């Protein structure tokens, strides 16, 4: 979702703008350094592809609604992080300057949340994972996990920007954070599925297009290793979310005590509880269960993403093996 003008405060817009300008400027410089005559056609075309691909509607598997691709990770995987970052900046600029989607002052924040995090950060995660696990399975797992994380990180960044903008308003930071990240961890599953599907299709049809990082020697994709890494990642996400949740419970009571809000507090609607992982028989919105349920939601999200990565990897590998068999028979 594009941030419109007026939602973030001027200082936050300025700060995000400076960071975004730095990242885009660095990417442009990197592009200029590695310049070949091909830079402009390839990067510009990649931006046009992302622009067009964002128009393609994907049916959500569970709900009668449509989602669409964000594309930062996909762009970075195909043309590299620097060109991917520039391509996302181009797409967001075009959407701002042609459709008035996203404010002019908030361009920095939009570019940061939706473009730079996905392309630069997403590519870092992707290359980390696909270097560890050789072969198509590693590439797809890297793409899927990076896509999911990029969406969640983007929403977390928006929360940070939004809270910084309204810090005078005694805002319930941890609750907003919990709602946004939990909700976007579901949206991120869609992004992960699309990115993983497109990457596995590319791997099967035109593997030369994928910018595969140099693989570490002896990197083999054993099942045990994948599961082990997945468990560690799930725990890491849970550990990342848990302090926010616990801070939420404590900070809430603190504010209530300070401002004598206790009577009001009881009537306050709790939007968080809709998105939390339900634990049967326990009221999730109270006490210590709050922190456990948010952490559990994180673990479920991570496990779902790992499952997608694993299944897509299997499909891709069987396709590749089939092709090799056919090739040997033909030869």
């Amino acid at each position, binding site marked *: *979702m594009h941030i*419109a*003008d*007026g*939602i973030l405060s*001027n200082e936050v817009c300025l700060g995000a703008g400076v960071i975004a300008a730095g990242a*885009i400027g660095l990417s*442009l410089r990197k592009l200029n350094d590695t*310049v070949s*005559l*091909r*830079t*402009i*056609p*390839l990067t*510009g*075309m*990649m*931006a*046009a*592809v992302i*622009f*067009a*691909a964002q*128009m*393609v509607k*994907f*049916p959500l*598997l569970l709900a009668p609604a449509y989602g669409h691709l964000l594309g930062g990770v996909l762009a970075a995987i*195909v043309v590299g992080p620097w060109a991917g970052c*520039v391509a996302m*900046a*181009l*797409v967001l600029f*075009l959407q701002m*300057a*042609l459709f*008035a989607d996203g*404010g*002019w*002052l908030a361009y920095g924040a939009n570019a940061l949340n939706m473009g730079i995090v996905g392309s630069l950060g997403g590519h870092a995660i992707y290359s980390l994972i696909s270097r560890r696990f050789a072969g198509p399975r590693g590439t797809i797992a890297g793409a899927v996990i990076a896509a999911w994380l990029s969406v969640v990180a983007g929403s977390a960044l928006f929360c940070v920007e939004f809270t910084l903008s*309204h810090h005078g*308003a*005694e*805002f319930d930071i941890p609750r*907003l954070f919990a709602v946004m990240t939990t909700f976007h961890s579901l949206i991120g599953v869609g992004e992960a*599925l*699309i990115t993983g*599907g*497109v990457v596995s*299709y*590319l791997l099967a*049809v035109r593997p030369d*297009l994928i910018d595969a990082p140099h693989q570490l020697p002896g990197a083999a994709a054993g099942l045990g290793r994948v599961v082990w890494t997945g468990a560690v990642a799930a725990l890491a996400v849970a550990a990342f979310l848990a302090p926010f949740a616990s801070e939420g419970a404590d900070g809430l009571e603190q504010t209530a005590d300070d401002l004598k*809000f206790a009577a*009001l*507090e009881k*009537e306050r*609607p709790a*939007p968080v509880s809709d998105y939390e992982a339900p634990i049967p028989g326990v009221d999730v919105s109270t006490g210590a269960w709050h922190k456990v349920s948010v952490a559990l939601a994180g673990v479920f999200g991570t496990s779902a993403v790992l499952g997608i990565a694993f299944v897509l990897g299997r499909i891709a590998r069987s396709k590749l093996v089939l092709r090799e068999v056919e090739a040997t028979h033909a030869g």
Partner: protein
Amino acid sequence: MPADFLDRYSFGNTICHRCPASLKVLLTVGVIAGCALIPVSYWPAQGCLACLVFAGLSLAEIPLAYLIRRLVLFLPLVLMTAVAVPLARGFAGGWETAAAVVIRSMVAFLAALWLVSTTPFDRLLAAMCRLGMPRLFAGLLAFTYRYVYVLFDELARMKTAQRARTFQPQSAWRTWAGTTHLVGMLLIRALDRAERIHGAMVSRGWRGKMHDLD
């Protein structure tokens, strides 16, 4: 894809369209920044800015129906964000913040819409170049703008072909896989096209430097 899909109203001939593009960019950014800087308690100043924007829009002869259509798409998102502030306080306060968010984002949105629909994209780009946008970025934007039309057409052709091959709606999973293949194939075709364009550019003397867009 109709040719006026993106620049629908920007080729008119009103006073707003004839105004120099860099002036319009500065004016728009000025209005948006002013709207963001003036506190909402000075509401007459905000009202003046809003009147200015409405005057600009009516001088540019942009149809009201178009504006309303755009606002209907835009307002729910903003309202959702704005209501988050009072909601977090149990509807006991924070309405000023919410009102400020709605007013500012509406004025800024309409101002940006005015700029976009009175200035053709290449003029806008040239103006922003003069105001200090990096040349490489502007060149890339021009290239992307040029080929967005081509890729939309390509996408429409591919969708037609896919519909022609698929007799009936399939299961959700198959639809999903088909759409994924659509995007993947679009990517492959576009990158191959970029290679061909690159070849054509080099053979016409491309040396890696964009010339003036004006």
